[in-house]
């Protein structure tokens, strides 16, 4: 690694550790640990939400996907962005008004039953683990390339860093690491995009014209269909992207870090502008990489295209820009996995330990201890799993997490807030059926089975789609509907309370 690269790397690690030290002094209660005491302002939380969205999958993954597949890569940008509207219009405010720390809090605001809390916690933990393994496997491969260290050392390094942030600084540290990284990532992306535009004399029409000739796809590069040729599968992926975000625990958790629904709302607005701008710029990253690095070199570095953005930085700005962008990519991974650890730990420590085992009677001290132990546990488990999962396809793991979030969490969130007749049986059947159907369908999909042995097992897939959302999301909704109708009547008084709280914020 170059001296310059080492400098940026150390600077970012040093800065984030300083923030953690600062945050540790103000993290003394469970509320401060899980939600930074609800003390983030609208713009702070907005940048942090944007940071959660702008994961390594967005920065490295989408840039690479556009560079290699043209418009088909841009589908991700569109899906992730419009997902914001689902979050804002359907989920954000009721969630903020009903919940405390976790998704389970919100559902149990209506159904005070431990089996519901346990089911919600298990679904949260499943999503967090899959998402985390994906991030860690990607991080390991990336850091291996960037710093020239072994995969297992890279995963361990990320594991230690993320545990440190969460353990000592809780949500305050996690949020500020996220904010710092989001700002650096935007700066890096704007610089690269500017340099790409400069190469095309600031003429966007010329850029598009030249893209017709510089890639192996030729004119098709500018049209859909380079990668996604199965229409049903494309629709299924788009369903998972737009509906999955609203069920991701580490995104939902962000709505508890502000003082009220109004602030939650304003933070989403900041985030929408930042994320929208970023996703527009992914076009320049992708086109630039295709034009100035070339697909052969991108694929040679990483078959999935994950190195496109750092290689483009090298081509345009030399070692200086490359080192900066690599360090920012590292920070991106750290910030996102820290948020995931925190949301996994809250499901464990708050839902399972605090509310189910201790029945809500745990002292502040016991809660903090449980939260910290759970953070270490979630980190250790995901690091171990990631060490064994090195050869797994990262995109597949992420799409699985989105699919479970959309199938298991979204139906129950929507029913809890908006459906009077919904009841306990419905809630459990929606979550369990959504979770199981997503897992089972993926286990039978071409991601796992391939006749030529290029997937995990050799053989014909029983289910034809790589992403099962188009089946598993409706199945989750139907299961919740049927479950409610076949069982006892709903508690009307409780629904009145939930409806009033969700709509007015009255406590």
């Amino acid at each position, binding site marked *: 690694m170059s001296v310059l690269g080492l400098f940026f790397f150390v600077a970012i690690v040093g800065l984030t550790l300083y923030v953690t030290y600062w945050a540790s002094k103000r993290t003394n209660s469970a509320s401060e640990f899980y939600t930074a005491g609800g003390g983030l302002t609208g713009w702070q939380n907005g940048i942090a939400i944007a940071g959660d969205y702008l994961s390594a999958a967005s920065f490295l993954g989408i840039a690479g996907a556009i560079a290699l597949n043209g*418009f088909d890569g841009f589908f991700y940008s569109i899906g992730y962005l419009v997902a914001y509207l689902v979050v804002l*219009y359907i989920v954000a405010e009721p969630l903020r008004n009903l919940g405390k720390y976790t998704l389970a809090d919100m559902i149990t605001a209506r159904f005070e039953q431990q089996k519901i809390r346990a089911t919600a916690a298990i679904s949260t933990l499943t999503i967090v683990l899959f998402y985390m393994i994906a991030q860690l496997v990607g991080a390991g491969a990336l850091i291996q390339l960037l710093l020239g260290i072994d995969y297992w050392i890279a995963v361990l390094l990320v594991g230690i860093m993320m545990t440190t942030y969460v353990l000592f600084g809780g949500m305050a540290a996690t949020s500020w690491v996220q904010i710092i990284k989001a700002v650096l990532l935007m700066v890096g992306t704007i610089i690269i995009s500017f340099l790409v535009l400069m190469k095309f004399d600031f003429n966007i029409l010329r850029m598009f014209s030249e893209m017709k000739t510089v890639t192996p796809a030729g004119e098709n590069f500018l049209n859909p269909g380079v990668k996604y040729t199965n229409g049903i599968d494309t629709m299924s992926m*788009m369903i998972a992207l737009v509906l999955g975000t609203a069920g991701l625990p580490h995104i939902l958790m962000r709505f508890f870090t502000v003082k009220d629904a*109004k602030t939650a709302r304003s933070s989403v607005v900041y985030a929408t502008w930042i994320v929208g701008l970023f996703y527009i710029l992914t076009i320049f990253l992708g086109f630039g990489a295709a034009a100035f690095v070339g697909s052969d070199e991108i694929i040679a570095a990483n078959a999935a295209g994950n190195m496109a953005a750092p290689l483009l930085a090298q081509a345009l700005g030399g070692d200086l820009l490359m080192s900066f962008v690599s360090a920012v990519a590292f920070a991106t991974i750290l910030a996102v996995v820290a948020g995931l650890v925190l949301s996994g730990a809250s499901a464990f420590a*708050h839902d399972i330990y605090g509310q189910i085992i201790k029945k809500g009677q745990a002292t502040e001290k016991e809660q903090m201890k449980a939260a910290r132990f759970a953070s270490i546990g979630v980190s250790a488990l995901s690091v171990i799993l990631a060490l064994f999962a090195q050869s797994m396809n990262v995109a597949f793991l992420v799409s699985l997490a989105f699919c479970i979030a959309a199938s298991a969490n979204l139906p129950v969130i929507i029913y809890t807030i908006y459906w009077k007749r919904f009841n306990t049986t419905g809630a459990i059947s929606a979550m369990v059926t959504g979770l199981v159907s997503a897992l089972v369908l993926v286990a039978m999909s071409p991601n796992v089975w391939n006749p030529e042995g290029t997937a995990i097992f050799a053989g014909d897939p029983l289910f034809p789609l790589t992403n099962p959302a188009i089946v598993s999301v409706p199945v989750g909704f139907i299961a919740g509907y049927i479950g409610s109708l076949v069982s006892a009547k709903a508690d009307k008084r409780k629904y009145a309370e939930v409806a009033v709280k969700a*709509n007015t914020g009255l*406590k």
Partner: protein
Amino acid sequence: MEHKVHHTTPPQQNHDYEAIAASPEFKSLVRKKNKFLLPVTVFFLLFYFTLPLLTSFSTVLNSPAIGDITWVWVFAFAQFIMTWALCMIYVKKANGFDSEAETIFNLHNKNEGSDR
């Protein structure tokens, strides 16, 4: 450490939620909210899924729109404009609902007080 030991669930005020839910003010707020949220949600989901539907099952978006920029990019960009616009519209609407929620709040608190 002299942190106070307190329970995870602070004692809650006992509002008569059923009375609030049945009040005309609350009903009107929920009706207004749904009248705004539901059509807009249906609209943006339709607008969103039209893009992959058109790209998957037709080639109408593959013809050039501006220079060599094809219609699919124009439609994709329109999704961005839609997201930004609907985000701003939501905040404007929701701020209006806030004041109505506050009215319900105050009205109700006053009633509860006078009942005792």
